[in-house]
């Protein structure tokens, strides 16, 4: 047909000329542009995310934290229960590079001698400068199982000799706080995933049902959310955590705590999922899909879920630190994980009163890990939030 052909010449050619003008670029940049034009939402998010420096720092630090926590047996010089009887309450070991004579040498430490100050009856640790102990990397230490599987006694750092290397000092039982913090990070960091995973499943499911079915189902779920959100979080956590039997093992307690944290977490998520679902249902492309005959489930799978997945990921990233804080708080109160389990919260329990802190301020160090982990997650979440909607300006 003549007219159609003509229109094609007239308007078809516009496309290529048009976009060059749109972007205002010369021909040489075309391949680069084409990459941009054929980029999926995921790629656009990633490109945008990469520009967010804080978020990149966040992801790098978190990667490091998780890596170290997984290989705690390797990075921590000692086991969590290994005690150094002469080193109870010992301060962090000073790693030295200069001998008494003032010469520089490879890193070494001194052993400590414990005396009691006659006036205050306090313990005093003094350096025993008679022997220098070399600090060594990749040494052998106590046998442990890396990743619960591989038996190994290789340690990242250690001391040549029989004095302990207490990088963060020792607790009142003479255990190495550094090793305990690294081991503790495993429970603390991963409880975030567990709790968030559970609340994610619950929240997406119930929020989805609520938004999808509407009507009575929606009403019931919404009221449930109302009730849950009306009960203050921390008291509810406390009351629920108190129900965990004391005699349960570490694993059981761990999952119970995860459950407790998720009980509160899902409600907020469900509300977001529902709202997003309702908004997306109104989008024209969803109506279009219905009009050309798509089934409901297909629309949910193909259009709705992918479109709010990025929001969910953002929400989750920001929910993980909340869970970490929750575990820390509960364990700190003694309602969460119990010794012999080691987590940041459990470790901070040893710094519960002013006497303990005054004696061993280094027992606050696990707290710094909490702050760093949470901070990095916030950076990451912020970056993701900014990148999540790549089509907005």
């Amino acid at each position, binding site marked *: 047909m003549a*007219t159609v052909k003509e229109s094609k010449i*007239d*308007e078809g*050619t*516009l496309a290529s*000329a*048009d976009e060059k*003008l*749109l*972007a*205002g*670029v010369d021909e040489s940049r075309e391949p680069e542009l084409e990459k941009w034009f054929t980029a999926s939402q995921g790629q656009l998010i990633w490109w945008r995310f990469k520009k967010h420096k804080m978020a990149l720092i966040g992801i790098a630090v978190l990667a490091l934290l998780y890596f170290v926590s997984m290989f705690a047996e390797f990075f921590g010089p000692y086991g969590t229960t290994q005690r150094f009887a002469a080193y109870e309450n010992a301060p962090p070991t000073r790693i030295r590079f200069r001998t008494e004579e003032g010469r520089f040498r490879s890193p070494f430490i001194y052993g400590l001698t414990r005396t009691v100050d006659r006036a205050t009856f306090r313990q005093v640790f003094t350096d025993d400068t008679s022997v220098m102990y070399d600090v060594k990397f990749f040494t052998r230490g106590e046998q442990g199982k890396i990743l619960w599987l591989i038996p190994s006694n290789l340690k990242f750092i250690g001391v040549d000799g029989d004095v302990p290397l207490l990088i963060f000092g020792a607790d009142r039982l003479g255990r190495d706080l550094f090793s305990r913090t690294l081991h503790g990070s495993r429970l603390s960091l991963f409880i975030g995933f567990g709790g968030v995973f559970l609340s994610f499943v619950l929240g997406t499911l119930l929020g989805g049902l609520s938004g999808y079915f509407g009507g009575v189902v929606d009403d019931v779920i919404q009221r449930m959310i109302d009730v849950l959100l009306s009960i203050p979080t921390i008291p509810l956590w406390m009351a629920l955590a108190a129900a965990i039997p004391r005699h349960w093992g570490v694993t059981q307690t761990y999952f119970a705590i995860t459950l407790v944290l998720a009980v509160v977490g899902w409600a907020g998520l469900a509300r977001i999922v529902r709202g997003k679902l309702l908004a997306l249902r109104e989008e024209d492309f969803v109506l279009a899909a219905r009009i050309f005959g798509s089934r409901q489930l297909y629309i949910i799978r193909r259009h709705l879920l992918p479109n709010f997945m990025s929001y969910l990921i953002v929400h989750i990233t920001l929910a993980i630190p909340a869970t970490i804080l929750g575990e820390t708080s509960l364990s700190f109160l003694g309602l969460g994980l119990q010794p012999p389990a080691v987590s940041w919260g459990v470790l901070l329990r040893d710094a519960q009163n002013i006497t303990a802190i005054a004696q061993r301020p280094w027992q606050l160090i696990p707290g710094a890990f909490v702050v760093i982990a949470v901070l990095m997650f916030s950076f990451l979440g912020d970056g993701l939030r900014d990148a999540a909607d790549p089509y907005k300006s």
Partner: protein
Amino acid sequence: MANILEVKDLRTFFFLEEGTLKALDGVSFSLERNKTLGIIGESGCGKSVTAQSILRIVPHPGRIMSGEILFHKTDSGEPVDLATYDPFGSGIRDIRGAEISMIFQEPMTSLSPVHTIGNQIIETILLHRTPDKIEAREIAIEMLAKVGISNPKQRIDEYPYQLSGGMRQRAMIAMALSCNPAILIADEPTTALDVTVQAQILELMRSLQDQFGMGIICITHNLGVIAEIADTVAVMYLGRIVEHGTAEEVFNNPMHPYTRRLLMSIPKLGKKAGTRLATIKGTVPIPLNRPPRECGFFTRCPEAMAGKCNVKTPALVETHGHSVRCFLHSDEEEPMVEIDESRKGRRQMLKETAK
């Protein structure tokens, strides 16, 4: 000639991450008292930035880089150059709302949702006309009556969402005219309105012009609205005025290929001429990182001349009763202007030269 506003060679650039966006690249026009200038163009041509530049409310990161905006306060008095004013200073603030005021496209978002319309109108009057609150309220009520809002004594205490779209636009107009401005800038005043309401607002603007005698700059993409209301018309394309003349001249005797095609591309009521509309290929480009010398329209122009339109910038030249910027009509070239793009803006540069 009683010009109240003369814009000369105005350049407003936006410094974006992707590069410099030349929203206005040498715009010149003038406005007479009691007359209406219509500025037409498609989205991205720079028509709204023109309005923002005059009032010095160009959003960040936009800057006026060169040019003059001469505003004649009275016929006799010396003109002031608004382009040299500090956008946050009291000089321009005394002019805004008092001598030059503006109405916007979306009357819902243009008014604060949590303040009554009365509050917002009275505020303007208190700023510029009278410090007396009671008098200001009376003026506001009078203005509301003038723009055709029935029962103004009651309506003055209503919130914007309580009014219909047309009523809100009337309230906006009442606010804009409350201090008897010399110039009213209307940025797409009827675009968000239904056609019957649009007719009411256009009618209102015309009758108010008769009453108040202000000059109007009406910015729109709707050719019908322009034909309806404007005495002179400026057609903008890619940050430049491509054609400028009386409404009759521009509509009946368009000379720029863009104007011509634009007029042919819209369906006209009652003139079903043939089945196909004329089209312009492509879309309006964004004036980002453009070559320094070109006719912006050459990529879409069916009459473009290679070696000419793509390498030289035509000048706006008066021929046959109105001005046009096209090499088909005159070989004259726009003089090259060197702009220091170091983000300084005109004001700073003027300051530096003064030192």
